């Protein structure tokens, strides 16, 4: 027991002395590992960042909301299957609500009709385009995932009377009324004045594609009046009571919707129920693909670093062949010699890995300071993983040369000049 401990400390001592004695060589070799670790860990932070951003985006969609739509969110070549489906109508939402209310122990809470399209919003001489403008009923307030910074949601009475009031998303409010409250002001949409009665908190964007802050909510009646009933994409959003029972809720909703539509048994659904989960299922493989490809490419740079370590360990073994012979003559076993060179390789890798990790941390901080939205996420698990990767790199790349050293014939090694 004592012996292996003394051999280990002796090996670490030798490794440190060896690195000190060959500073230039060790530094250059470690540089390969530094670059490799920086590449891999940066990729790791990016993957984690994407993951977190993705989950945040899904949360914005509402994890407890089912969307009844004509089109699935993700379509492929099969668009022709959906194109002839009937458009979702407001009456269907009303009937769905009635069925939900009549169902004992329903998994569903309420159904709200939402009809939206892109457009521009003006106030004075300021204008914002690409705003997602949608009309809905007062109940939408219960489905909404964002909070109000100011004001309120319109109510059913305002909806029924097609009052020209609206709620603005964070970015729209900021752009049109910089530095002041938007409440009580008038904005122009489709040439019509709308009074702002509420504004929402900042939510961020969905996968960087669609900003939840660039939206405007108005009474459905007003929307249909000025945008017409045919344009845009109508849907029914259905809030679920328990978000852990999304599958059951979805089944119930399918049945309810088929009843509303009067579909016959055996007839395929002429609507789609979209959930953020389905989105996730579709996007997860893509995310994994990105992660794998990224790690593979960055892994290559680490592999190059590992080859550097292997090379330097071969050189080290060659240079010290006579020393190996001497050590063997004095009683060093195979494992002693193996350990000595393995620890030398691992030491360089760990030093390189530590420097690489520090660099990554610095880069992450710098990027975060410069571009807060960029998805990078440094974490403790990253430290652990990169240290494990460093050690593994050292062991794997040092093993072959170290094994060669341990198997040297002492007679041959002693004669080596």
């Amino acid at each position, binding site marked *: 027991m004592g*012996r292996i401990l003394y051999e280990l400390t002796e090996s670490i001592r030798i490794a440190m*002395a060896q690195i000190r004695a060959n500073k230039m060589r060790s530094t250059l070799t470690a540089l390969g590992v530094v670059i490799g670790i920086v590449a891999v860990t940066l990729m790791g932070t990016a993957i984690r960042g994407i993951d977190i951003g993705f989950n945040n985006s899904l949360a914005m969609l509402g994890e407890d909301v089912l969307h009844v739509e004509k089109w699935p969110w993700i379509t492929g070549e099969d668009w022709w299957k959906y194109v002839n489906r009937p458009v979702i109508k407001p009456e269907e939402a009303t009937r769905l609500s009635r069925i939900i209310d009549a169902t004992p122990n329903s998994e569903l809470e309420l159904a709200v009709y939402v009809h939206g399209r892109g457009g521009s919003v003006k106030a004075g001489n300021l204008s914002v385009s690409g705003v997602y403008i949608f009309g809905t009923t007062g109940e939408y307030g219960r489905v909404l995932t964002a909070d109000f910074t100011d004001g309120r949601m319109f109510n059913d009475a305002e909806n029924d009377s097609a009052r020209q009031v609206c709620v603005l998303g964070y970015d729209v409010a900021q752009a049109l009324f910089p530095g002041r409250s938007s409440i009580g002001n008038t904005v122009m949409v489709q040439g019509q004045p709308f009074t702002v009665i509420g504004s929402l908190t900042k939510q961020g964007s969905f996968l960087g594609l669609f900003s939840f802050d660039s939206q405007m909510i108005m009474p459905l009646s007003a929307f249909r009046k000025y945008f017409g009933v045919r344009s845009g994409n109508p849907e029914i959003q259905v809030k679920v009571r328990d978000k852990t029972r999304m599958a059951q809720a979805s089944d119930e909703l399918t049945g309810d919707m088929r009843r509303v539509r009067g579909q016959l048994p055996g007839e395929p659904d002429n609507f789609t129920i979209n959930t953020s989960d389905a989105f996730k299922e579709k996007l997860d493989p893509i995310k994994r693909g990105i992660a794998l490809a990224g790690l593979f490419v960055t892994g290559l740079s680490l592999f190059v670093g590992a080859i550097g370590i292997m090379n330097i360990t071969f050189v080290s073994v060659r240079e010290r062949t006579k020393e190996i012979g*001497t050590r*063997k003559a*004095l009683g060093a076993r195979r494992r002693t010699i193996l350990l000595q060179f393995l620890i030398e390789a691992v030491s360089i890798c760990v030093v390189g890995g530590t420097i690489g990790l520090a660099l990554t941390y610095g880069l992450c901080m710098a990027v975060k300071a410069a571009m807060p939205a960029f998805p990078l996420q440094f974490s403790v698990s990253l430290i652990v993983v990169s240290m494990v990767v460093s050690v593994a790199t050292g062991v794997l790349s040092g093993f072959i040369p170290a094994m060669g050293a341990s198997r040297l014939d002492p007679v041959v090694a002693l004669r080596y000049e």
Partner: protein
Amino acid sequence: MTPAAPLEARQVRPVGPLVIAIEDVAKLYQMGEETIHALRGVSLNIHRNEYLAIMGPSGSGKSTLMNMLGCLDTPTSGRYEFNGQDVAGMADDELADIRNREIGFVFQTFNLLARSDALRNVELPLIYAGIAPHLRHERARQVLENVGLGNRIHHKPNELSGGQRQRVAIARALVNRPSIILADEPTGNLDSKTGIEILALFEDLYEQGNTLIVVTHEESVARNARRIIRLHDGLIASDGPVN
């Protein structure tokens, strides 16, 4: 050349129990197409507290026999027992343990670790023997004092003279109290005055009860021993006391 001590001044100590028993040992090497018979059937007994010289021209099998005695190599055929243990069939790591415990090596080129001081060089066999740090510091320091280097223990090899380096190497050979000390041309890299000092140290070690085997091609070095074995073409040509 290094002269031997005057014969009448030298004592021949009574030998102890058998340490090395070699019987009909042969060693073959394959050099391409050719098979080289380095040893062709050597039989030899060495007892505790002998002072033995092995001589022979190059190609006589001298180095092969030395490697065999030092358990660095195993015979192709024949029997080799070290303190009653069969060495011929041992695995690498068993041989390493025998070398560590039973054999102290002294090399022509000293073979010290350049970046370690004298003390650490001497400690090395004790590390491989699994001796605790405080014990091995103490023992290494003691042995260095015994070879006259008590005031040089923290010097690196490049801060020592040739004779001092060989003394460090001898201290390293002694530190684990081995059964035999095996010296390969121990004066080969030293000037004659220093060579005489080293041989005098060997004489002291012999008188303290150590077993010494010196491999040399120099008659004057060999004549310091009490027994000389001469090899020729892989066979023992003569084996007898120095007179």
